[in-house]
């Protein structure tokens, strides 16, 4: 049986000489995480047996973008790659945690590069059409936005319901001075798929980044996002809509990290759980000593639609300077009874009233998604999922 071992990939001869082999060594040495670690608390990491998966090439399609978005793809199986790309990967792999190392070792890379002052008006749409039980996929999307450029990237994860596969994606967004980058990740994975994702963005001076997530699929889907503001005046926003049903679990970790002065960040995560599904949101606002005059906001709201469903919300602040404006808010609870009564008192059926209220709850996030045209179909998917929850 093929397993995720360094030997296996070495024997395939499919590694980039340095980055991949050192990442492989790190992956072999990195400890397997447990829920005793704060970072993995509440997670289902204990259920994951990596030996059940073998790495596979990620079947991805890329559309849109146009001439000003330069797309470069380097598949796992590529024997060699342009050495200049090594700048896009971490040089020191020794501190990488297991999944970061695994991704680096097995990655299929898609680089979206936009030169300075170029505005890419049509979104770049990357679709990972995954399939096959026992397969593991390691897509890595790097977005390089040059000075004062603008680009929107949509990344979709799709798989059939029955396929017990693992996807370990990495997103790496680099916004140079005054660049505007909007990203939307959509999890439409089947109900047997696992996702353990890592996202990071770094925003230089006066840059503006938006990291949006819509999570509907997966058995266990975890996304850890770190948005760093490294140049003064930078702004970053994170928004997410997540909706777990059946026995699904969605698990989010977010970091808003203010390194430089006068940086601003905002976060709005809204989730719902039905049946016996679970969700976790753990968010940290970290403001460094030098990041004076910064402002950071964080809001997480959760609806528990069934008695058996469970949601956890853990907001945290770590602030090293007084000269900041910060707020966080989090709620977990059932649908507001007064809202349902209002709709029902007009003659709206209870199931329809519930659907309207939940869709209304998510509307605030849908309205902020970078590709407005997608909101309609995503709204319809949420609506269908609510109907399934009612029948079960």
């Amino acid at each position, binding site marked *: 049986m093929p397993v995720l071992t360094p030997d296996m990939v070495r024997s395939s001869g499919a590694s980039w000489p340095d980055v991949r082999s050192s990442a492989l060594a790190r992956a072999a040495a990195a400890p397997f995480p447990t829920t005793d670690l704060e970072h993995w608390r509440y997670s289902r990491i204990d259920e994951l047996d990596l030996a059940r998966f073998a790495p596979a090439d990620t079947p991805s399609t890329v559309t849109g973008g146009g001439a000003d978005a330069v797309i470069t793809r380097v598949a796992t199986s590529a024997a060699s790659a342009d050495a200049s790309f090594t700048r896009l990967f971490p040089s020191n792999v020794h501190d990488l945690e297991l999944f970061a190392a695994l991704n680096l070792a097995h990655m299929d890379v898609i680089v979206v590069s936009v030169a300075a002052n170029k505005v890419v008006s049509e979104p770049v749409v990357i679709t990972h059409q995954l399939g096959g039980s026992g397969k593991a996929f390691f897509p890595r999307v790097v977005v390089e936005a040059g000075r004062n450029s603008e680009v929107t990237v949509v990344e979709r994860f799709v798989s059939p319901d029955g396929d017990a596969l693992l996807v370990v994606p990495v997103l790496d967004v680099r916004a140079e001075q005054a660049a505007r980058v909007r990203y939307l990740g959509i999890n439409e994975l089947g109900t047997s798929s696992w996702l353990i994702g890592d996202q990071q963005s770094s925003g230089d001076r006066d840059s503006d980044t938006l990291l949006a997530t819509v999570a509907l699929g997966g058995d266990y889907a975890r996304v850890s996002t770190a948005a760093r503001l490294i140049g003064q005046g930078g702004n970053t926003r994170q928004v997410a809509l997540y909706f777990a049903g059946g026995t699904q679990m969605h698990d989010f970790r977010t970091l808003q990290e203010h390194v430089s002065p006068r940086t601003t960040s905002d976060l709005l995560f809204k989730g719902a759980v039905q049946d016996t599904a679970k969700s976790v949101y753990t968010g940290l606002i970290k403001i460094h000593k030098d990041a004076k005059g910064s402002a950071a906001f964080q809001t997480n709201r959760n609806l528990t639609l069934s008695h058996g469903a469970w949601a956890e919300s853990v907001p945290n602040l770590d602030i090293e300077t007084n000269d900041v404006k910060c707020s966080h808010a989090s709620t977990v609870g059932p649908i507001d009874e007064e809202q349902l009564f209002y709709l029902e*008192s007009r*003659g*709206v059926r209870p199931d329809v009233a519930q659907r309207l209220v939940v*869709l209304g709850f998510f*509307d605030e996030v849908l309205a902020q998604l970078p590709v407005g045209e997608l909101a309609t179909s995503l709204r319809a998917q949420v609506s269908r999922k609510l109907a399934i929850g009612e029948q079960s």
Partner: protein
Amino acid sequence: MSTLDIRGLTATVAGKQILNGIDLTISSGEVHAVMGPNGAGKSTLSAVIMGKPGYTVTGGQVLLDGVDMLALPTWKRAAAGLHLVMQYPTEVPGVQLDAMLAEALRDRGREKDVATLGATLRAEAGRINFDEKFLDRALNVDLSGGEKKRNETLQMSVLKPKIAILDELDSGLDVDALRDCARRVMDATREDNLGALVITHYSRLLEELRPSRVHILVKGRIVQSGGPELADVLERDGYATFSATFSA
């Protein structure tokens, strides 16, 4: 011709008896006012008729054309022809007025009205000076007190209930909005044969919304009923007279 018949209605809130046996009969085209001091049970009466959670009916009946409303869930009471104009309309973020009304009409089998809903809303908004820009807002979100009541009145006009209960229509709105809403209700009693049960603390509202019958509610019971002149007595003497009557 429809009739709402309330017979011996008693109810508790959190174990406390609030309604002590209400008897009221309202028919199509009529306007009845229920007046009472704070704590008399006015809002409880409207909540219980509509089936709001948190209120327990301990006795009596609420019949609409002979059908027992208390046995029906809230949405079926509304579909049967009852409507509640709320004192404090609930904010429902992200839910548009037209989306809700479309579902409400659909559940009543009024597909044809769904098709013309947009035009109906604009026409009705014009009648009560409700700015059309508010039609695109989420329900009651970022609306002033007056706009909320116009919005409530607008919904009533579109849904065309048989009997409407107006709970403190006059609270939290200015004189212009009060007049616009009250006149629209009066029009509905003539045009659509609406029966209106107007619950209010002050007689000011009744200058616009002219009742044929006035009932005085004190301590959960109707202590006196009469013609419109009863409101004038109340205006002059206050509730003290009626409270005394009840205690004696």
